[in-house]
């Protein structure tokens, strides 16, 4: 018969260094918003985002596919996080956009898009100490998160007139964060390893619509919005919290009157604060603005299709604030679009320099390389 002899102590150890968290500015909260920009849109600072057929922001823009095809994007981020004398250099590989287009008659285009809404991939490894029994012991703690909330969109675009197109999208938001925590004590014979594993799942829905209008031969304007539906956060079969997918509003204008070049400006407002009720820590989710401007220039031709060059600048707020500090993110970007096989096969390449403003004494910069591959057989 088991008898409880003594409940000697109940030690609740709250050591800051034990924190199992992101360790970066950009991946706070539910993760980093990759932005929904294709490689070429990102290269041009997001200025053309509302018009770009491989960017999943404006469902009306997908008429630009012209014919059925496939697009995928690889986007590694080389990040440097600096906190005083300590520096982390990391590389996060992302595949932020997959898209398939299917022509629906002469005036319509259907697309299936899988894009990353919030990427929560990070790992921290810290040293710490703890009192166990009568002794204090050092340990190494590794916390890792893998996964994202993804946006699966079924979209249709339709050409109402030669200079006006509209589009609609149904969104399903799915994904999971696979979290692991492992605290390895220095003496593994005397102390057991603390391990935790948890998979947080997300399920939500939304609707989007957009339009593109060319009132003049050299000017086009576009606007879109996404209405966020419900979002459930679950662990196993238990719903931990329910909230809403953020609403999003975007608009853009482009000017094609320059010889061999176009410029564009876009603005986006995302109501991330709808995620605030899902947060269970002292983080806060804030509504954000994004402004992007960029230029697209034609270069020499390959197989009668011009090589394109891009330049851009973009700035936005990051949605999750630490102790009220909102970080601003700025991008300087450039890129090129190579028609490897005429207009049928395009390789877009971009490089973006991102700098995120200091939060809690931590600064962060990144080089984001992006490669988009479009095939239109």
């Amino acid at each position: 018969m088991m008898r409880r002899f003594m409940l000697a102590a109940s030690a609740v150890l709250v050591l800051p260094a034990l924190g199992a968290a992101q360790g970066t500015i950009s991946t706070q909260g539910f993760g980093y918003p990759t932005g929904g920009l294709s490689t070429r849109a990102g290269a041009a600072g997001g200025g053309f985002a509302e018009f770009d057929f491989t960017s999943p922001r404006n469902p009306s823009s997908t008429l630009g596919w012209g014919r059925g095809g496939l697009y995928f994007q690889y986007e590694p981020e080389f990040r440097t996080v600096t906190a005083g004398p300590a520096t982390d250099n990391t590389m996060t590989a992302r595949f932020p956009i997959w898209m398939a287009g299917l022509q629906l008659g002469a005036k319509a285009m259907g697309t299936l898009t899988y894009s990353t809404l919030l990427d929560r991939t990070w790992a921290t490894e810290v040293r710490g100490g703890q009192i166990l029994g009568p002794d204090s012991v050092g340990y190494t703690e590794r916390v890792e998160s893998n996964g994202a909330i993804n946006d699966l969109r079924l979209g249709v675009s339709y050409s109402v007139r030669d200079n006006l197109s509209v589009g609609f999208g149904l969104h399903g938001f799915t994904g999971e964060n696979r979290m692991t925590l492992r605290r390895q004590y220095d003496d593994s014979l005397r102390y057991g390893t603390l391990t935790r594993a948890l998979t947080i799942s997300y399920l939500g829905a939304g609707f989007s619509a957009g339009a593109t209008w060319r009132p003049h031969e050299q000017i086009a304007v576009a606007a879109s919005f996404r209405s966020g539906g419900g979002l459930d956060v679950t662990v196993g079969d238990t719903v931990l919290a329910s909230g809403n997918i953020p609403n999003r509003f975007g608009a853009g204008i482009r000017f094609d009157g320059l010889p061999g070049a176009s410029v564009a400006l876009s603005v986006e407002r995302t109501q991330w604060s709808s995620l605030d009720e899902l947060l269970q820590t002292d983080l806060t989710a804030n509504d954000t603005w994004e402004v992007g401007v960029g230029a697209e220039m034609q270069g020499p031709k390959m197989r009668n299709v011009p090589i394109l060059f891009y330049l851009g600048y973009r700035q936005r707020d990051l949605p999750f604030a630490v102790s009220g500090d909102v970080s601003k993110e700025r991008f300087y970007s450039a890129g090129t679009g190579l028609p490897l096989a005429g207009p049928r096969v395009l390789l877009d390449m971009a490089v973006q320099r991102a700098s995120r403003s200091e939060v809690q004494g931590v600064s962060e910069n990144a080089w984001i390389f992006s490669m988009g591959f479009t095939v239109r057989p």
Partner: protein
Amino acid sequence: MVALMATPRTVMTTRRGRFVLLAMLVAGTVAACTEDFDGGAACPALCPEQNVVVYDTTIDPVELDTTVSPFPTHGTETELFLARRGDTVDVRPVVRFDSLPSFFNSGSPTGDTVITVIDSPYVKLRINLPDSRFSQPVTFDVFDVDTTTGDSAFARNDTSTAIERQLFRPDRLIGSITFDSAHITDSLRIPLDSLKVLNKILNKQRLRLGFRASSAALVQIRIIAYEGGDPPLLRFRPTADTAFADVTVFPRSLVPRSQITLAADLTDYVHVIQFPAAPDPTFLTVGGVPGKRTLIRFTVPSRILDSSNVLRATLELTQRPVNSVDKTVPLTLFPLVVTAGTEITDVGRSAFLTNSPGAGFDSVLVAPGDSGVGSIEVVNALRAWGLGLTGSSQKGIVLRAGPESVDPRFGAFYSSSAAPNLRPRLRVSYSPVRSFGIP
């Protein structure tokens, strides 16, 4: 000459090709980078969300505790302990040569030759010298301890200490030699009486040799046993002709005939003639000769085993001082986790079926004469019990001495039948499994 000049169009095409090639090269280089997102420089500033709650609890978890002996079981020792410490310790091994040769190969065309004479018989012992103790000259006496009993019908009597221990007497002496301590090496030859050995051969009798050591000071000799791989050997020349090589006889026990494994075990074994008294069975004893183990079975709350990470588990045992030899010299104790299933009810088998010493647990040092609370870290046992794979295993810990049955030191602890403050306790630091990682 004209043909060698590049046209503007050709130059442009070449440049485009180089540009595309460079772009592809950059793309390939970037794509080849390995993902590595390990950070930590920003902690704790940007790592505010996790706390780990640890509870520290002391419980009285003993379901069963007892002392089990002998270990190794009789006859399975890898080393034979030969010891004499005044009138305190007297341990004597026996080696059986139940099958002696009657013939030898003389090269005769008519076949093997009957042994009718032997020359220079001796028994060779392989010694674990680094772990043996002596400081004065040591006399090795060898006795013929064969008994008239010992067929399968009397197998039990065949290993009886009561009979054989009486045969270490002068009329049974078959060999003796005194070595200066400097001359005791890792291989000893003890000469035997030729006539007595020959009589055994001619009469087709068994030769069973009992060894006794004596010295002006303490003597503890560890002889490699049959199970240790380098057993004692009997050697003699089977003829007076010195041109012939020695015959080597390996030890062997022919009884009990119906139990081959047990017969092999009884090839060599140890008789404990004199040894300090162990505490009564209400105490938990570890070590000594023959070797004793302590078996403790636990009942641990499921909230600790199943729903938590056990971070530390310390078995606290209150030591009872014993009046053993070398009572101030620490003895190494190894905690072992029982691997026997719950269907094994025999405590001897449970204490035998364990993991290997040193695997997963730190050893502890215990001086036999000490008292007070000793701590043994057993966290890996509790973690193993918390796994589903070990659901059918006993939740038991065995304490054993480092060398078993070849070291006279032993320690004793209070058992669960003692007063509450003296009983075995388990101090556990554990962290309940809770959700984490939700931002």
